[in-house]
């Protein structure tokens, strides 16, 4: 058994695909529909066969309430790891993203947070490399 897919709820899938690819820099992986259902995932171009992130349409009132509460509390819906959080911050900001937290040192890592425009905050994390 492997961890292969995780998902975020988004308010609009086409808009989400644009944000997660063109702004964030991920790549579309799978996109098909069955009736009004659309299975849409993205993956990291650095790891095309790695973990997929499903961009799931949030048409579920219970999930909407949860998503909104998490957003209002400043809790990220998903976390990405990077080797260059400051560089990513600059690159993604230059593409028009709204950051709610600039790169900030916390215990064990440097984190930054941005609005995905689809109802979520997302966090980028760079682990601190301790020298022994």
């Amino acid at each position, binding site marked *: 058994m492997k961890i292969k897919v995780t998902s975020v709820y988004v308010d609009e899938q*086409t808009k989400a695909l644009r944000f997660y*690819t063109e702004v964030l820099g991920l*790549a*579309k*992986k*799978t*996109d*098909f*529909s*069955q*009736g*009004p*259902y*659309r*299975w849409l995932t*993205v*993956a*990291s*171009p650095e790891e*095309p*066969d790695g973990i997929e992130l499903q961009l*799931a349409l949030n*048409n579920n009132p219970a999930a909407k309430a949860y998503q909104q509460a998490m957003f209002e509390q400043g809790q990220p819906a998903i976390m990405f790891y990077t080797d260059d959080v400051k560089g990513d911050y600059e690159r993604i900001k230059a593409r028009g993203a709204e950051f709610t937290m600039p790169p900030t040192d916390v215990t064990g890592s440097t984190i930054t947070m941005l609005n995905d425009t689809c109802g979520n905050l997302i966090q980028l994390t760079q682990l601190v490399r301790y020298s022994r």
Partner: protein
Amino acid sequence: MTVREQYTPGPASGAQVRKDGEKWTLILVRELRHSPEKVWQAIIDPAHLREWAPFEADRSLGTIGTTAKLTTVGAPTPHVTETTVTRAEAPKLLEYKWGGFDMRWELEAFGGGTRLTLWTNIGHRFIAMGAAGWHICFDVLDHLLSGTPIGRIVGPEAMKFGWQRLNAEYAKQFGVESPSWPPQAARKE
């Protein structure tokens, strides 16, 4: 071999696309050798829908104002949407939404049978896929109405019955590019 195993869909036909800006509507026409009353039952009754349609309904769709839950069959994660029937004029006209799609069914008496027309708006990337899926569903519906049901063929089952060929044929007819199947690996776009 059973009737189901022998089933192969015919060539793509009876479908057209109407483009209204960003909104594309798929129009499917099928002539059935059965009365409008009989076809009407098949499109409103949960027990009938279960035999051929790509969704299940938790109650009859035959009355205006009815609120029903529609479950997409075979979706990769459970997918249930609530709908309200906005028009129901037996045995002629039925309208409701399936998720974000408008669904308009028209039944027209025709040479002792019924000309069934479905209007449904589908994102244009997926319009050939939708036409291919409904093509197979309508074949299964025809078998059901003729008293020789072969069982619903939707979702992954459709792949075993020529869905890919129909998808390609409809994409060609509509002049659209359908997403490749099976899905390709991640790529930068």
